[in-house]
C-alpha cells in the first residue's frame, strides 16, 4: 500500500482504536482504527464483510465489541463499558438506510414522536409550538415543505433530510453532535442522491461532523474529506483531506491494483457484441400503455443488452413488470419470440416464465428473497418441477446442482443448506440471478441489478450478465446508475412522460448525455407524489 495509516491528531471528535469483534468462528473486526475530524464528511468504505457494518453497530450499541477503545467528546470507554446510552450521551446520532419515518404522519409528528410533543394547558398537545419549532428546522435544513406535510408526499431525498434533521434536532450551539449515515443513498435514484449529498456537504461546511458508509464510489468521492478503508476487519488505509481516485480506493479495498481496474466500472462491450442489429428480435413492445406508460415502443434483439433509464415515476419498473406479465397492460402489444411456445399466450407470470422470460426485481427483500428458506430452496424456486419423480423430490441431485451454481456464480455461502438471509446483499443478488439463469432464459429483465451491492459482487454481476448476452440472451436493464448503463449496455433508452424519449448508442452513449436527457424536463423544487412505482 502506498498510503500508510496516518491517524490525524488535531480536532478529533471520535476515535476508535483496536476494535475487535468475533462472531462465532468469524472475526468481523480485527483491531480496526477510525478517527473522525470535526466538521468533515468521513467515508467508511470496504467490500462486503469488511467490518464496516459491524463498526456502525458497535457504535450504535447493537453489538458489544470484544476489545478496543472508543473516545468521544472528552470521554473514553473500553469496549466492554460502551453501550447505546453512552453513544447517545456523547452525541452520536444515527440515520439508517431504513429511515424509521412514519410515512402517513406529518413531518411535525415524526419529529415529535422522537423528541416528545410540546404540551400546553392541561397536558394538551401544543400544535402551534410544535409546528413553529419544526418549521424552523425545515428552514434550517432547506427542506421545502411545511410541517403539516405527510412524509409520504416528500421526494426521497427530502425524506432522508427529514430523518437527518430529526436525528439532529437536539443539537445546540454548545453541543456538537456526530451524524452517522448508513448507506444513505442506497435506495435513491442518482439525481436524488445528488440533492441529498449536496445538502450533507453544506451541513459539513457549516461545521457538522458526518460519518458515512456507502457502496457508491463516485458519490463517496464527491462528498468526503477523509476516507477510512476496511479490509477483513482491519484498517488498511486512512486518507486525510485527500482526493483519491476511484481506482485507488478500490485497490485498497481489494488489496490489488490489477483487480481494481477490472472492478470499478464495466468496460464497454467490444468485438462481435458491438455490431448492432445482429440476431432476431426477441422482445417487441408496441404502443404499450398502462400505469405511467403512455405508448412505449421498443425492441430487444438476441445477444443485445439494452438499458432503460428515466426519473422516478417514468415507468421503468412498470414496463418490466408488464413485459413479465405481472401487470396487465391497458393497451398495446408485448410480443416475445423464443423457441418456447408459451411466449405469446395470455400474459400471466407463469406463461411468461414458460416462454423463456426471467425477471430480477428491484426490491430484493420484498420480491425475490425467501429469507428463511435455504439457499438451495431459493436457487431451485424457478425449476422445482425438474426435481420431482413419483417417489419424491431428488434432493441430493438438487443439492449438487445448487452447489455447482454457487461455485459458477461465485456466491459466498458456507453451505447450500444455510438460510438465504445469512448471505450478504451482493451474494443474495447473485443467487437470485443464478436462479433465473439456470433456466437459460431467452429474455432477461433486470431492475436495478446492482442496488445495495458491493463493488466486488457488482463486477461479478456485470461479468455474468455479459456472458449471458454472449450466449444469445436478450437483456433489458433498468437502472438509475448512468455510469453502469454506459458501461454495460449496447444502447440505452430514456423513458420520459411514459414514452421512449431518446435512444443513445455507440459514441453518443455517455453518462453526461444520459443525465441531461433524463433530467431535461425535471422540476427541481417542491414535493412530488409518493412514488409507488418507477
Amino acid at each position, binding site marked *: 500500500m502506498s498510503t500508510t495509516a496516518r491517524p490525524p491528531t488535531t480536532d478529533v471528535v471520535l476515535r476508535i482504536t483496536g476494535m475487535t469483534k468475533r462472531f462465532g468462528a468469524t472475526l468481523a473486526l480485527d483491531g480496526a482504527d477510525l478517527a473522525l475530524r470535526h466538521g468533515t464528511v468521513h467515508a467508511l468504505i470496504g467490500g462486503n464483510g469488511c467490518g464496516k457494518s459491524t463498526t456502525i453497530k458497535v457504535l450504535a450499541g447493537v453489538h458489544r465489541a470484544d476489545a478496543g477503545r472508543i473516545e468521544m467528546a472528552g470521554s473514553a470507554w473500553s469496549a466492554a463499558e460502551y453501550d447505546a446510552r453512552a453513544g447517545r450521551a456523547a452525541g452520536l446520532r444515527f440515520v439508517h438506510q431504513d429511515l424509521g419515518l412514519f410515512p402517513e404522519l406529518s413531518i411535525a409528528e415524526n419529529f415529535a414522536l422522537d423528541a416528545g410533543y410540546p404540551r400546553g394547558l392541561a397536558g394538551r398537545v401544543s400544535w402551534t409550538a410544535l409546528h413553529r419549532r419544526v418549521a424552523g428546522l425545515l428552514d434550517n435544513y432547506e427542506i421545502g415543505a411545511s410541517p403539516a406535510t405527510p412524509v409520504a408526499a416528500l421526494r426521497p431525498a427530502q425524506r432522508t433530510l427529514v430523518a437527518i434533521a430529526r436525528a439532529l434536532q437536539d443539537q445546540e450551539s454548545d453541543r456538537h453532535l456526530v451524524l452517522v449515515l448508513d448507506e444513505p443513498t442506497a435506495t435513491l435514484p442518482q439525481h436524488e442522491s445528488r440533492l441529498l449529498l449536496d445538502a450533507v456537504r453544506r451541513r459539513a461546511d457549516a461545521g457538522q461532523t458526518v460519518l458515512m458508509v456507502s457502496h457508491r464510489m463516485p458519490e463517496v468521492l464527491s462528498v468526503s474529506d477523509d476516507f477510512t478503508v476496511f479490509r477483513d476487519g482491519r484498517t488498511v488505509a486512512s486518507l486525510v483531506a485527500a482526493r483519491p481516485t476511484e481506482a485507488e480506493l478500490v485497490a485498497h479495498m481489494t488489496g490489488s491494483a490489477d483487480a481494481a481496474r477490472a472492478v470499478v466500472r464495466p468496460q464497454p462491450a467490444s468485438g462481435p457484441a458491438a455490431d448492432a442489429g445482429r440476431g432476431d428480435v426477441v422482445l417487441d413492445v408496441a404502443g404499450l400503455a398502462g400505469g405511467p406508460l403512455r405508448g412505449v415502443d421498443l425492441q430487444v434483439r438476441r445477444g443485445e443488452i439494452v438499458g432503460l433509464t428515466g426519473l422516478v415515476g417514468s415507468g421503468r419498473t412498470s414496463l418490466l413488470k408488464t413485459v413479465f406479465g405481472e401487470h396487465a397492460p391497458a393497451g398495446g402489444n408485448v410480443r416475445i419470440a423464443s423457441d418456447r411456445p408459451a411466449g405469446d399466450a395470455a400474459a400471466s*407470470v407463469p406463461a411468461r416464465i414458460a416462454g423463456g422470460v426471467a425477471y430480477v426485481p428491484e426490491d430484493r427483500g420484498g420480491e425475490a*428473497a*425467501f429469507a428463511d428458506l435455504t439457499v438451495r*430452496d431459493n436457487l431451485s424456486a424457478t425449476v422445482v*418441477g425438474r426435481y420431482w419423480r413419483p417417489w419424491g*423430490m431428488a*434432493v441430493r441431485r438438487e443439492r449438487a446442482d445448487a452447489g455447482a451454481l454457487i461455485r459458477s456464480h461465485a456466491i459466498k455461502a*458456507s453451505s447450500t443448506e444455510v438460510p438465504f438471509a445469512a448471505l450478504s446483499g451482493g451474494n443474495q443478488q447473485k443467487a437470485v440471478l443464478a436462479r433465473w439463469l439456470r433456466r437459460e432464459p431467452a429474455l432477461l429483465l433486470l431492475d436495478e441489478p446492482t442496488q445495495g451491492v458491493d463493488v466486488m459482487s457488482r463486477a461479478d454481476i456485470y461479468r455474468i450478465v455479459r456472458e449471458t448476452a454472449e450466449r444469445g440472451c436478450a437483456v433489458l436493464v433498468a437502472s438509475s446508475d448512468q455510469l453502469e448503463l454506459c458501461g454495460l449496455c449496447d444502447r440505452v433508452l430514456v423513458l420520459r412522460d411514459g414514452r421512449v424519449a431518446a435512444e443513445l448508442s455507440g459514441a453518443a452513449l455517455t453518462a453526461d448525455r444520459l443525465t441531461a436527457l433524463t433530467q431535461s424536463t425535471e422540476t427541481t423544487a417542491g414535493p412530488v407524489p409518493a412514488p409507488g412505482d418507477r
Partner: protein
Amino acid sequence: MSLTSTEHVDTGPADGPDAGTTPPGTAASPSSRLKGLAERNALLALLLAVIAFFAIYPESSDTFFTSSNASVLLGNQSVVALLALAVILPLVTGYFDFSLGAIAATSSVLTAGLMSFSDLSLGLAIAVGIGVGAGIGAINGVLVTRFGLNSFVTTLGMATLLGGLIQWYTGGQTILAGIDPALPRFGSATWLGLPRVVFVVLLATVALWYLLSQTPFGRSLYAIGSNPRSARLVGVRVDRSVWTTFVLAGALAGVTGVLQLARAGSATADNGTSLLFPALAAAFLGATAVVPGFFNAVGTIIGVLFVSVAVSGLTLSGASAWASPVFNGAALLVAVGLSHYLGRHRGVGTG
C-alpha cells in the same frame, strides 16, 4: 450462524444412479450438524422421556405402560391428530383456519343427521359430510384469497356461524338413533392390536408428508409461507395454491368429523372448539421438530403424541380434570417460545 443444518426435506428416498455426489463446501460442519440433529429430534426425545417417566412412576406404572392404555390413547387421539394435520395445511402458507374444528363438528352432525333424520345410506352420508367440509373450505379460501379478507377473522366468523347452524340442525340434542351400526363398529375395531382409526391417521400423515415435502406443489406452499410476493414472481399461482390448502384442510376436517362419529357412536351438538385448540397446539409443537421452524406432518403427529401421552400419564397418576388444558396451554406457550428463541419462527401472517 450455528443453526446451519436446516434440512427442508431430509427424509426423502435416496436418489438413483443419477445422483451427483455432494460437492465440497456444501456440507455443514460436524458440530452444527450434530446440533441440528439434536434440534430436529428434541421433541421425539422428550416424548420418549415422558413415556419412560410414567412407566416407572409408581402412581401410574401399573396402568400406563399397558397395551390397553396405548390402544385407548391412540384411538382417542386419532381425531385430534387428523384435525392437527388439517390445521397445518393453511398454516404452511401463512394463513390461519380457525373454522376447522367447527367444520369437523358440522361434518359429524351432518353425517349422523342424514342417516338419522333423512334415512340416507352410510356411504352417501359420509360423502356429504366430507363434501360439505371441502365446500366450506372453498368458501373460506375464496374470501381469503379473492377478496383478501383477514384469515384470522374470516375463519373465526365462519366457526361461529357453523356452531349456530349445528345448534339449529340438531335442536341442541345429541343424535344417537338411526346411525348405521357399521360406522361405530369400524370406530371400535382393532387391527394388528391397534384401533383401526389409527391407520386412517397413519395414511393421512403419509399422504400429507408426501404432498408437503415430496412434491413441487408442497415446495411452492412453503415458498408462499416465506414470501408470497417472491413466490408470485417465480411463477407460483399463489391465490390458487392457498385456496387449494383451504379446500384440502376442509375436506380433511370433514373426514375428522366422520371419524369422531365412528369413535363416539353419536354426534353431539358441539361447536368443535374442544378439538381445535389441542390440534393447534400440536401443530405449533410440531413446527419445532423434524424440520424445525416449519410446519410439517411428521412433527405434528409427534406433537399430538407428546401432549396426549403426558396428559394420560398425569390423569392416571391421579391429576384432576384441569391438568389436561393446563398442560396443553403450557406446552403451546413453550413450543412457540422455543421456536421464537431458535430465531427461525417466521411469524405466521394473518392474511
